């Protein structure tokens, strides 16, 4: 059978199993079809701490998970609310310092500092970004980038919060297993929580703000309010990551305002596929280890890094997961020409 007589036909799978919200699942195959990818993802993530023996690379897994929280927040804001945020460093820094201060000055345990820094950090970030919410596109992005730079200099100049030394002696996690499994569970929870949120009624309002903000106002809803709620969610995820980071390193300092926290989540979204949420998450688990590995090459790593990004933008500009999801929902067969 030569390919001249036959060609490959690609079909979208029936709407039955694809439409979200309508679960007319009739067979085990269809249940498997729906559940399998999620199962692989969850099991895969939870196996990482067991499969990776070296202490150094175990730590990298935790850091990648923190970046994943940032990437989820970035993808949520960019593709479901229409806000391009470079606020990763801002969120991490605020959450990190808040947790460290709560722990050191008030003596609160990790069990309290992390949730409090998550909510408190989200509140601080949202309030500070409130004036920028009416700004669009790159202007909003610039403001989110300006805050971490400014806060860094303020802490340096006024020598507050330990100045350039940072806050030392923050409580650590009881052991590596707790440290790793807690953050991995948080990441999984955040992913499925956000996926659910964007399909809830309030999620449709967020998507409405992105699609057509004037129509949202004509619908009797304040776009500033819903943008603020969305920023609260994303900055909460980032602050949670920051708080975690402080407890992992038992230290909080101005390097938590480093631009890596703003840039890597975006790169991960480009690679993983914007708008899929899971893509940016996986992007972090790919990029963060690579960037660790490239550390050996010193400053040259930026070049490798840029090459990888450029390759993705040129050859798979839609991102891996957008491509993978489309392929998963199609099946191919040979038909006679």
């Amino acid at each position: 059978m030569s390919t001249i007589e036959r060609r490959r036909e690609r079909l979208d799978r029936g709407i039955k199993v694809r439409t979200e919200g309508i679960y007319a699942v009739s067979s085990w195959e269809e249940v498997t079809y729906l559940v399998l990818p999620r199962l692989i993802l969850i099991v895969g993530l939870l196996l990482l701490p067991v499969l990776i023996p070296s202490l150094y690379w175990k730590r990298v897994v935790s850091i990648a998970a923190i970046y994943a929280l940032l990437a989820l927040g970035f993808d949520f804001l960019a593709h479901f609310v229409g806000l391009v945020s470079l606020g990763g460093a801002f969120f991490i820094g605020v959450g990190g310092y808040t947790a460290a201060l709560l722990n050191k000055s008030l003596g609160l345990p990790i069990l309290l500092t992390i949730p409090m820094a998550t909510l408190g950090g989200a509140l601080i970030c949202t309030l500070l970004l409130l004036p920028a919410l009416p700004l669009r596109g790159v202007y909003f992005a610039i403001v989110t980038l300006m805050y971490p730079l400014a806060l860094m200099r303020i802490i340096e100049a006024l020598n507050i919060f330990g100045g350039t030394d940072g806050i030392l002696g923050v409580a650590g996690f009881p052991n590596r297993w707790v440290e790793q499994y807690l953050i991995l569970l948080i990441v999984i929870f955040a992913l499925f929580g956000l996926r659910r949120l964007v399909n809830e009624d309030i999620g449709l309002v967020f998507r409405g703000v992105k699609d057509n903000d004037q129509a949202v106002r004509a619908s009797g809803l304040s776009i500033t309010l819903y943008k603020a709620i969305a920023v609260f969610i994303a900055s909460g995820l980032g602050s949670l990551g920051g708080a975690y980071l402080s407890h992992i390193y038992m230290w909080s300092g101005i390097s938590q305002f480093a631009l890596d926290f703003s840039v890597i989540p975006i790169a991960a979204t480009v690679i993983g596929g914007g708008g899929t949420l899971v893509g940016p998450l996986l992007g972090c688990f790919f990029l963060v280890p690579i960037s660790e590995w490239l550390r050996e090459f010193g400053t040259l790593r930026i070049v490798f890094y840029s090459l990888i990004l450029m390759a993705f933008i040129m050859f798979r500009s839609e991102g891996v997961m957008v491509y993978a999801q489309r392929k998963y929902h199609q099946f191919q067969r040979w038909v006679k020409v």
Partner: protein
Amino acid sequence: MSDEDILQVTNICKSFGGVQALLNVSFNVQQGEVFGIIGPNGSGKTTLINCITGFIKMDSGKVFYKGKDISYKPPNQIANLGLTRTFQIMRPYYSLPAYKNLIVPLFSPRARRKGGWRGGGKLGDRGTVSIDILEEIGFERDSFVPYKLASSLPTGYLKRLELARCLALRPDLILCDEVFSGLSMSEIASMVPLIEKLQMDGITLVMIEHRLRELFRVASRVMVLNFGEKLTEGIPEKVMADEKVKEAYLGSEKLLDYTFEA
């Protein structure tokens, strides 16, 4: 100004740089009527709606809705009072299916207050309510149309979706900006009874229209704008007989085209 007036507009002025888009425009709309606004292109009709509904800050002037001063309020607050508007250039959420487009207005404080929990109360959840509204406005319930992405809908349905967004807010007054334009004659013919039905349901309508024939079938009074100024106002026959109106229309476009279009 009588108590029956649902909307009172006094001396709205608005200029864009050098262009005086509106100059001292005043009019009243009575509860329950269909009030038409006509005028050549660029005469300031859309700007007038934008000023009333808060989408544009007017330079001066006052707007009273149900006797309450709503001038310079933000658009979402005005919409929540039941004063809604359609957009001349349709503004659907293209990435959402038609019925999910309506979940956004159903999520508004007004719709939630009026409809009870989840915007449906006894009627059901928001998805069900939006299918009901779409059916009322002319989407076939048992077809795929309400479930299609807004980006794949033709103009006729998008115009209906604009009206549906207003209806989801349980409005008392709808300002319609050219809901007939871009539609075929048969589509317009099917929209007219819809407008009549809204009026029967007690909704007051202000309609900007170029399709004078269809407008005059439903409107009790019309106002004419030209270069941002109000020329005249009254029952359709009298207004069209007005010399100033004929002149304004003949100056830019052909009056006959609009009036006697088959």
